[in-house]
């Protein structure tokens, strides 16, 4: 029997898949197909049914209706392989050890593990996708993108390229920075070119555009659109996913006031000789690739991390390095890039997190926390920031990422900051939450707050900021404002020459 080896043959066909949880319909007659060598992206908001789809494919839930066909026409069965968001790697073990986990092939002479063989095999697996890193280093020392690549390599172990394989990647880029994303995407494309089908689940629309062949948009459990990538653009996708055109920010007409923040000759781990000023009512962006110092600047200004040399003046007063309490007292607020590690206490309730920054002037440490005041304030901020569900006494970890981020931002807006320092303010949040966060930041600036935003997303900076400072290899290399302030200009300036 001649087997169908045509490059575009269908590997997986999902027909009319339906799944409900109680009264909620998570998936409603969803159909899609993945072909060999094809990258199919599935996009949608949190709660649109993406993760349910993955769980049905993985067999974690049984569908209420519909079928998942993995048997292709010629009798071959497609193998589905999954890379979940948490990757499932053991951080303290090396790439080699992670790849050989769970494949006990017996021991060599005298119980010796077959180290050399395994090492060579791992090296080959990694190189196959056009990347190269040290396979003996513990996985936790690798960059997030490299870790994801290890997970992909492990999922594809034993794949001889004759087998029919579909790799399902569930939000692989949620914790990656811009440059890292590109690196991962190159690997994903390389896997597809070798004949595997890729099902790529994401809520980051911009990255999907450059990489997928076809995009399927989900909304409320339904497929609301299936378009070839070449036929759509970012705005089109946003509209598809959100169900309406999301209004962009109005161009602000900033009236910069006094200088709130003055940084002179700052030197840190990566930062070299940075000087800058931010005025009241101004939104200043900080752009740069990974390692350019972009991630260090806000933390150093706030006092959350030490710096070598230089001076930081906030509202006319010089801050001591690392004295973040003085910074808070003088009106600084800092929203860290890593919400889980630095931004919030996930095991406490949303309203407790909202009140986490004690305002020294009016809240003494031994003063009573009145639950009525707390409820009222929580209600107020939940409405202002559109946090859902409206349950301030629920543990923060149970809110979705976007809503957690709104709580973190609200916690600082509550202190009425004079200087708002933001790192990756919209990383890992869906598009609705993103535009809301942008409006909150703009609103705060309109009230006279000086805002400094560090972001890996050039598009975000171009939309949100009045001017953007570009860092490269720790130094300030450019300042973009007015008509020069475009996404392309930021990206161009960010690349080290």
């Amino acid at each position, binding site marked *: 029997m001649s087997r169908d080896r045509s490059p575009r043959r269908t590997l997986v066909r999902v027909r009319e898949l339906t799944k409900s*949880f*109680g*009264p*909620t319909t*998570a998936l409603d007659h969803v159909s899609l197909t993945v072909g060999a060598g094809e990258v199919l992206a599935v996009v949608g*908001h*949190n*709660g*649109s*049914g993406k993760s349910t789809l993955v769980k049905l494919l993985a067999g974690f839930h049984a569908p209420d209706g519909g079928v998942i066909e993995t048997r292709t026409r010629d009798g071959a069965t497609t193998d589905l392989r999954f890379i979940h968001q948490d990757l499932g790697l053991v951080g303290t073990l090396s790439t080699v050890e992670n790849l050989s986990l769970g494949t006990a092939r017996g021991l060599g002479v005298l119980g010796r593990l077959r180290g050399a063989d395994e090492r060579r095999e791992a090296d080959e697996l990694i190189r196959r996708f056009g990347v190269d890193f040290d396979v003996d280093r513990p996985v936790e020392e690798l960059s997030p993108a490299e870790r994801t690549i290890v997970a992909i390599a492990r999922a594809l172990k034993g794949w001889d390229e004759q087998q029919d394989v579909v790799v399902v990647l569930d939000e692989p880029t949620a914790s990656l920075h811009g440059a890292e994303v590109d690196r991962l995407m190159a690997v994903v494309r390389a896997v597809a070119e070798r004949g595997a089908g890729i099902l790529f689940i994401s809520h980051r629309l911009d990255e999907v555009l450059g990489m997928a062949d076809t995009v399927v948009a989900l909304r409320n459990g339904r497929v609301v659109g299936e378009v070839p990538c070449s036929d759509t653009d970012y705005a089109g996708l946003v509209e598809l996913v959100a169900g309406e055109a999301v209004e962009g920010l109005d161009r602000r007409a900033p009236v910069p006031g006094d200088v709130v923040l003055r940084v002179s000759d700052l030197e840190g781990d990566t930062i070299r000789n940075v000087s800058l000023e931010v005025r009241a009512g101004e939104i200043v962006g900080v752009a740069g690739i990974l390692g350019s110092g972009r991630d260090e600047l806000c933390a150093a200004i706030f006092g*959350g991390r030490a710096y070598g040399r230089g001076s930081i003046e906030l509202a006319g007063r010089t801050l001591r390095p690392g004295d*973040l309490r003085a910074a*808070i007292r003088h009106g600084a607020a*800092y929203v860290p890039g890593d919400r889980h*590690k*630095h931004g*919030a*206490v*996930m*095991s*406490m309730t949303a309203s*407790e997190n909202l*009140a*986490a*920054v*004690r305002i020294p002037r009016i*809240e*003494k*440490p*031994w*003063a009573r*926390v009145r639950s009525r005041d707390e409820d*009222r*304030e929580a209600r*107020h*901020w939940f409405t*202002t920031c*559109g946090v*859902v*569900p409206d*349950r301030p006494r*629920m*543990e923060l*970890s*149970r809110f*979705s990422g976007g*809503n957690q981020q709104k709580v973190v931002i609200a*916690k600082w*807006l*509550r202190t*009425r900051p004079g200087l708002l320092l933001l790192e990756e303010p919209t990383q890992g*949040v*869906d598009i*609705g939450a993103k*535009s*809301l966060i942008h*409006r909150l930041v703009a*609103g705060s600036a*309109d*009230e006279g707050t000086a805002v400094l935003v560090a972001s890996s997303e050039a598009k975000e900076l171009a939309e949100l900021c009045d001017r953007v400072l570009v860092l490269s290899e720790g130094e300030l290399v450019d300042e973009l404002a007015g008509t020069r302030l475009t996404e392309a200009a930021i990206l161009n300036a960010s690349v080290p020459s």
Partner: protein
Amino acid sequence: MSTAANEKGHAIRRRLAGALAFRNISALYILAAMVVLFSVTAPETFPTIDTVRIILNDQAITAVLAVALTVPLAAGLIDLSIGAQLGLGAILVAWLLSVQGAGLGVSLVVTLAVGAGVGLLNGLLITRARISSFITTLGSSSILLAGISWISKDAQILDLGDGFQAIANHQVFQIPLSVYFMVGIAVAVWYVIDRTHAGRAVYATGGNPEAARLAGVRTDRVVILTLVCCGVLAATAGILLSSSLATGDPTVGPGYLLPAFAAAFLGSTQFRNGRFNVLGTVVAVYVLAIGVKGLQLSGAPVWIPELFNGVALLVAVAANRRQASARRVRKDKPGTPSESTTSSPAKPSPTTASRTTASA
């Protein structure tokens, strides 16, 4: 208007149902079941006012210690030295009174100050030398036991004076003073860690020290203060113990370690959804004690208390972990509130936002 009232009634009912749910107050249901069971198996001895009084009295010291332990646990610290801290307090106060012949007031103040000092040392080792609380207190526990042995020469200290004995044993309404001390301490600690900004800082430090630091909490100071507080309360428990026994006994400390941990962890599964809390701890102390007492009165062998406390600790910790993982699983399921999509509120307006805050 009536819909608003309805909605409010609904919210209250929902909160009441949540508060009475088995997973929230399982210990109280278990308590009720035990009372019924032991009233059947030991009908003459168990359901009597004397038993109530004995349990209340016997466990007052364990309860003070367990409440003391709740404070560092809330801040994310394991204090393995509290058994030895209690032992040091017990022997030190007896030594000062009997061997040194110091006055009652001086003895009490010095003992409490030494308790604070032990907590301070633990705290400094954790924050300055960056040793984990587990190892720090494991080490300091051994040092304290050596100190107890040195002070007491491994002999009981008698002759503590009537005034000192009255501290724990004087009865008001037929209940000894130690019970009143326990209640007072529990209320004070509850107020501070549950109702003040300082208490929030303690829980934030326990939940995520780095996030707490970046929100302006002096986490090192929180660590030190919670351990000092724990040290003072453990010394208080030691004083109460020596007073109620009328003896300074060098061997008593370590025996209190496990019951205190079992109660604090069991308590964390009650009322507050996995969070260490004072009320839960006190309730847990008495639930465990009633279980032990009932088994003894029903004719169970002498090794039952050890077994019971050990099993309770493991079950409580397992339940605590399960609550945590249940929360994660619930989050994964679509259809629960946490997964709902972002709604866009009508018009977010930071202008009104800050105004309200300002007027608040």
